[in-house]
């Protein structure tokens, strides 16, 4: 790991170098009062003022709609065609947050548990993550409670920490990260060992530990807490769609006469039809059951099965929720509750 220093005024020069060399650079841009990840063409497009974006950056590796394969029918015969390699291009995700970077770990685990998902892997392999440590946080952030932190370096290729009004610390962790540094070597100088990164990081109080949640919900399947918490839930998919870890998807068909594509698109466990059988029977018949599934999946099933938690503490779901289903609040109350 290498520690470097870059002047704040040089950051845009560096990013412009990256944009010139890398076909796809994704960064937050201004979006109304908030920010949203988008393809950028200019370093000046990047919006640094907001804490996080509305949506997570998972769509860089797991797009909301993607082709699995194409088919063409010819009389009784059918031919299948793969997605072309040219769709998978080198990508830099600029100014991700530590909670965004960390989220690719559970995603990668899900897509590689047993069956290896080629499409995800091909996209993910081409991604370089440049993370910016958080100097500030808002009331929805709870990364420290889920094992991350405002300066967590996990899964990032390089991390930028703004130290003061003039300079930023750049930590390089991987070969991919180093390649980006090499694009504009002259802008960097060796960092002084005395730089205290932790001092400038946001202070995010830890409200619970993920293990606490895990232990509490283990035997809470029949608890009344699910109904109490989900009473106001409207059953939309906003939380799942903005979540950096939610990977549930639907498989659909886009047909045009004799040819078409099989499509994979996002789906959400919050929808009533998600589990409904053709016969009309629904194993998760109400919103309480669906809310429970969401929490149990992230904090019980995933750790038990994949040894990783399905929540990074980014707080996006709470920000997106139309009825303010604040996940920190709900998780805290789970952590403090006692179940028999």
């Amino acid at each position, binding site marked *: 790991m290498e520690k470097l220093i870059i002047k704040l005024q040089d950051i845009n020069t560096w990013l412009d170098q990256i944009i010139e060399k890398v076909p796809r650079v994704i960064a937050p841009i201004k979006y109304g009062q908030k920010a949203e990840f988008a393809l950028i063409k200019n370093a000046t497009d990047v919006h640094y003022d907001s804490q996080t974006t509305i949506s997570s950056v998972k769509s860089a590796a797991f797009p909301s709609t993607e082709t699995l394969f194409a088919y063409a029918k010819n009389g009784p015969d059918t031919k*299948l065609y793969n997605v072309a390699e040219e769709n998978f291009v080198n990508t830099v995700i600029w100014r991700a947050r530590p909670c965004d970077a960390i989220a690719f770990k559970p995603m990668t685990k899900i897509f590689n548990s047993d069956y290896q998902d080629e499409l995800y892997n091909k996209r993910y392999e081409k991604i370089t993550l440049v993370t910016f440590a958080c100097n500030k946080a808002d009331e929805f952030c709870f990364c420290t409670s889920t094992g991350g932190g405002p300066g967590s370096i996990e899964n990032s290729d390089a991390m930028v920490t703004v130290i003061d009004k003039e300079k930023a610390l750049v930590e390089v962790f991987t070969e991919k990260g180093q390649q980006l540094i090499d694009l504009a070597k002259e802008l960097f100088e060796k960092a002084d060992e005395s730089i205290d990164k932790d001092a400038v990081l946001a202070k995010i109080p830890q409200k619970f530990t993920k293990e606490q949640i895990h232990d509490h919900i283990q035997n809470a399947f029949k608890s009344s807490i699910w109904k109490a918490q989900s009473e106001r839930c409207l059953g939309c998919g906003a939380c799942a769609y903005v979540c950096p870890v939610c990977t549930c*998807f639907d498989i659909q068909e886009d047909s045009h006469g004799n040819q078409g594509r099989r499509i994979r698109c996002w789906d959400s466990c919050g929808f009533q039809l998600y589990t409904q059988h053709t016969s009309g029977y629904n*194993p998760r018949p109400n919103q309480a059951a669906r809310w429970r599934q969401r929490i149990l999946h992230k904090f019980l099933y995933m750790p038990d099965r994949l040894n990783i938690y399905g929540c990074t503490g980014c707080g996006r779901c709470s920000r997106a929720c139309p009825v303010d289903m604040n996940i920190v609040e709900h998780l805290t109350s789970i952590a403090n509750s006692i179940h028999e």
Partner: protein
Amino acid sequence: MPYIMVIDKVIVEAPGVKTLRLRFQNEEEGKSFEFKAGNFAEYSAFGEGECTFCIASAPTRKGYVECTFRKAGRVTFGLDRLEEGMTMGFRAPLGNHFPLEDWKGKNLVFVAGGIALPPMRAVIDNVLDRRDEFGNITIVYGAKTVNDLVYKEELNEWNERPDVNLFQTVDPGGETPEWKGKIGFTPNVLAEVAPDSNNAVAIVCGPPIMIKFTFPVLTNLGFKDENIYTTLENRMKCGIGKCGRCNVGPYFVCKDGPVFCKTQLDQLPPEF
């Protein structure tokens, strides 16, 4: 990527229920393809989508696979429109299978309802092909009406075999004047037949409501939980443990199932 299969034969089993006999278009794929009784598959009607059912033929009968389905939604209507000689998609084998090897030497009791005989048939045929390895075989099969019974020819065949005890039943009101089988709901008929639970394994397959009422009957008959098997039929899309909808507790039905024994089910949250 699914295999491309050619439809060799279309058999109409009952109103709205068809069996398709499929062979691999690419013979090499067919030769290397292996599965076990209980595995399921994703069948695609191109242009409509993909749908999940068990493989209805036995792994011991090589050269083809069969699927049986009832017309219910978009994909099954699409499959229904397919004719002999046409092609469709097939992803298999998916999921787990019945532990046939553990059942050697045991008596087997099969309880099936309606369209749930197909997943069972893979096992039954498999067992019949290795008949001497197993003890007594009892089959209790019920459907709503006489018309809804599937595999009528095979049922006759089984009926005539001396080494199979077959009990067919239809729900009250579903009988015809010629009906020679029993009348009554499957769980009740099972209680009436009362197969011996000694050294026996019960395999139950049917709609959730039938399973719910069949389990207590089996328990009353003395079957131990670990000797009662069933297949769960949650909604599935990917079949490979990714898309998330068949998630029941820590399990994905499509990966860890569809075959579960009652001991496992009792530990699962009731979401199936």
